[in-house]
């Protein structure tokens, strides 16, 4: 129910800030998404989308944090850093 799926913004339209809308690519499937709650989101950004609304912009640097944590614990020494 609280599922939110990450997708990449490919275009943005709309003048009313609350009804700002974007075309978002979810692994090849493109959907119209309300961007009213993510005024900071730009074309090329990834947003997490829940029932047609972007609820956050994915922070690219923070997305690495899981792997850094593993590395610091010495559990990622033999693994290549994943390319994201």
């Amino acid at each position, binding site marked *: *129910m*609280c599922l939110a799926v990450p997708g990449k913004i490919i275009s943005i339209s709309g003048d009313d800030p609350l009804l700002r809308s974007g075309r978002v690519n979810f692994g090849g499937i493109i959907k119209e998404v309300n961007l009213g709650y993510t005024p900071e989101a730009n074309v090329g950004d990834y947003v997490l989308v829940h029932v047609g609304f972007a609820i956050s912009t994915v922070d690219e640097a923070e997305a690495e944090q899981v792997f850094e944590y593993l590395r610091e614990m010495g559990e990622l020494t033999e693994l290549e850093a994943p390319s994201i």
Partner: protein
Amino acid sequence: MKYVDEYRGEPEAQGFARAISRITTRPWTIMEVCGGQTHAIVKFGIDELLPKQVELVHGPGCPVCVTPLELIDKAIAIASRPEVIFCSFGDMLRVPGSAKDLLVVKASGGDVRIVYSPMDALKVAQANPSKQVVFFAVGFETTAPANAMAVFQADNQGIDNFSILVSHVLVPPAMEAILSSAINRVQGFLAAGHVCTVMGYEEYGPIAAKYQVPIVVTGFEPLDILQGVYMCVKQLEEGRAEVENQYTRSVRREGNLPAQELIRDVFRIVPRKWRGVGEIPQSGLGLREKYQRFDAEDRFGVTDYTAEESPECISGLVLQGVKKPFECSAFGTRCTPEQPLGATMVSSEGACAAYYRYRGVRASALAAATKEI
């Protein structure tokens, strides 16, 4: 898919599992709050990667599961009216009411439609001005911004044939209800990452301090959940009870401020009854007075319904983490996803449905083994 696949790597998962084993010296019981996390844990077998001393119990974070029976009955009464187009997320349609479910209403000629977003229901209202269009607004804080926007836009654009049947619940009061229960066994929480994406996590500080439990805001992919468990166990082992954030790529301390602003404009905090749990004070959202005319309960005169739960269903205990699904005598026999006795068997995020789907036969074997111990 980017930001999904990379968090599902087996070697990394094994790395976290080893690290958790290394720091665990005692038994710990940790609850994942959100049904989406429960689904991922059972689907990917994350609980089976953990040392035996770390037990994950499944929380109440399944909106479909906690929507009270009388509200399902209200939805059925409204959806059965000839002038109504009733719009809902798909998984509400099979939740059993006292006598039937919304699918039966649809099969008997009711205009019941599955929509992806409340904004789709608003479009249906615009396209059908001679009909009453009702949206079944269930959900936690994650879904509240979407429902708030639908009501705000209905008001703003004068779409008066639109209304919502509100069943909105809030996570922190439910966590407090679990912690203050005499039968509580939860020692730490994985808090729901998308709820916190919207609301931030400042409100969890007082709960962690008052009940001395670590709370780790956690994402939904296997590596997120494993890291959340690691952070939680580490706090437990070190005797700390703090709020930490694992899901930093989405969750900021203050949450999504524009979303919170519209939620506050449209909704107010009210007591809500949780299916299987009972009434929890200040645990839900209702429409503010200025938007009251969009309340479907008022519009269709269904405010005073009461209903009795199936006496055999233990979903209340499952939702509080006291019992596991396979400890129910009806599990998999008299209660299946096709013929559910209670809501935890209906939603794919309900613990019973997740166990049935991914653990079916093994669950019975496990139940037998548990009894022997």
